[in-house]
């Protein structure tokens, strides 16, 4: 088993067999460090839905949810999770524990909030909503941050009541310091794609490499994983590349291989992508900071990718194309995820050949391989 598979398997095992209170969190802009420091086990319904999609079981769960009345237009992650709940909550990875509390941040996506409300109802557990204002074009407004910090303080006392441990200053600082270390290492790995040819694929590989920073941020295992991964990437001999692309959007998980191979055939290497930064905007310099515990968690929550305006997102794409010296942009628009896909077609960058593709991240029915291949091939034929 690879180190990554082992980490993910351990995460699932600890959830189904371990002890201690459980919190459910969204991926975008979460404050995982706080519950972690209070001894909570941390679960991410989105990551679980993603795993179901990757293992090709999401399709069944989605149908199950549609039988219950969920519309074909509702996010596939949500339906996959609702279908899973309706099937007794036991998926391919064992049984997911009931939450002691659900903690939703509003900066990632408004669908997540409704999803968490539904889960709170099913599990009859309390829901804490961390309301995070939009940061629009850049640095979070100080008033907005103060507003979030106040809520994080309130959250600390709620977690203290439900959890077993008091959130001691030291333990929180330790957790944040580990987050910071993992973030530094992860950015170093992503930066290695600036080399030509790049030894690392910042999308087709990175979407897996990002798992620990998503689910284990703040743990020693997470830091260890990235330290080892950095050494492994440093030691690589890069394979030749014919095209350097930047990718915007999540992958179509149920058809990941087929999708990847469409690009591999053309020798296209992804040198930067936005999906690997949906968790946090470390590439813009953000780091968790033990000396500003609540402030840095609040800032992390606010600076999440989908909380950005479209002009800000275009600026990020332009910057990445320049910094990584890419020659094409690929936009993969997924039907499920409106916070990601609405307006995405306008993100084409002037003078950079842009390929626009559509399918889905969870629902296998929205992927048409023949159609997709024609678009990808035609795009690369142009440049031949």
């Amino acid at each position, binding site marked *: 088993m690879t180190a990554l598979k082992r980490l993910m398997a351990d995460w699932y095992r600890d959830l189904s067999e371990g002890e201690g209170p459980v919190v459910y969190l969204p991926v975008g802009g979460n404050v995982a460090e706080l519950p972690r420091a209070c001894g909570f086990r941390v679960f991410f319904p989105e990551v679980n839905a993603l795993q179901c999609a990757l293992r090709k079981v999401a399709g069944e769960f989605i149908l199950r949810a549609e039988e219950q009345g969920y519309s074909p237009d509702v996010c596939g992650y949500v339906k996959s999770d609702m279908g899973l709940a309706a099937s007794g909550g036991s998926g391919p990875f064992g049984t997911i524990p009931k939450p002691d509390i659900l903690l939703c941040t509003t900066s990632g996506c408004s669908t997540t909030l409704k999803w968490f409300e539904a889960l709170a109802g099913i599990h009859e557990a309390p829901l804490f909503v961390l309301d995070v204002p939009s940061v629009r074009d850049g640095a979070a407004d100080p008033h907005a941050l103060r507003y979030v910090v106040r809520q994080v303080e309130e959250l600390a006392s709620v977690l203290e009541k439900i959890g077993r441990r008091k959130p001691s200053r030291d333990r929180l600082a330790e957790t944040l310091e580990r987050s910071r270390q993992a973030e530094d290492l992860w950015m170093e790995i992503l930066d290695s794609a600036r080399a030509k040819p790049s030894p690392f694929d910042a999308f087709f590989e990175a979407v897996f490499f990002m798992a620990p920073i998503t689910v284990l941020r703040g743990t020693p295992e997470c830091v260890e994983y990235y330290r080892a991964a950095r050494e492994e990437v440093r030691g690589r001999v890069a394979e030749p590349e014919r095209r350097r692309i930047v990718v915007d959007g999540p992958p179509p998980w149920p058809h990941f291989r087929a999708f990847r191979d469409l690009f591999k055939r053309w020798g296209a290497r992804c040198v930067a992508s936005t999906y690997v930064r949906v968790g946090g905007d470390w590439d813009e310099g953000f780091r968790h900071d033990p000396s500003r515990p609540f402030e840095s968690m609040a800032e992390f929550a606010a600076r999440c990718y989908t909380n950005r305006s479209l002009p800000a997102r275009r600026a990020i794409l332009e910057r990445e194309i320049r910094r990584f010296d890419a020659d094409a942009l690929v936009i993969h628009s997924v039907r499920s995820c409106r916070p990601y896909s609405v307006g995405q077609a306008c993100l084409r960058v002037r003078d950079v050949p842009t390929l626009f593709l559509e399918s889905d991240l969870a629902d296998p029915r929205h992927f048409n391989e023949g159609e997709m291949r*024609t678009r990808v091939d*035609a795009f690369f034929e*142009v440049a031949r």
Partner: protein
Amino acid sequence: MFVLGIDLGSRACHAVLADGEGRIAERSFLPAAADLHATARRALESFGLRRDEIQYVAATGFGRGQVRFRDLAITEITCHARAARALLPDASCVLDIGARNARAIRTCADGRTLGFRVGDRCAAGGGRLLERAARALDLPLDEIGPVSLRAQDPVAVSSVCAVLAESEIVRHVTDGRAVEDILMGLHLSVASRAAALVRQLGADGDVALTGGVARNAGMVAALERKLGLPVRTSPDSEYAGAIGAALLALKRLRILDHDPRVRLS
């Protein structure tokens, strides 16, 4: 010397034989059967030539990967772009309405692609919808265009799906609407989806219409109305995919003659 361009679509197979100057020597049309490779073979046989009498074969279309005797597979987009500039040199934008969907392509003068937009996967944006309509209204496919031109008051077709559009047809028939008004409504609905693709490319000059739908005068009228731009067709519009493939085959052959090390992909 001959090169063969073969366009194996989901509904039909078009093939053309071109000489060393890129002149079309012969054309062949076959309805596509379930066995795509067999269809391609029959197209080859229809020219009365053996495979080794043809210097180069380029395949395109949905079934291009099934043409096992090909030298090269090229996407429809690249082929239609190339052919349209050969057939209708003044049009800088190509609209290819196929059976399943439509694509718009902006080209430069030598037929290379500058950018393209493909319609979504639903058949409501393609010629297949018109075929189904012809069947539902009991008309030969070739007649729906001319009939639609007589429309006084086209119906509004709003469905985003070919199957639902068919049930809309039935509703209009039972409501007693005139056949020509129903047909023009359908043409306008396909045209408005295709026009959106053209507009996304920012096209402003002549638009070349390729694919089988180009024979349909009702479609040309509907497109001009939706686009506000002149829509041009050629008697060979229907063969555009195959012609583009043949021209690109010839180009590839010339490169190979110059440099035998050029790798085929």
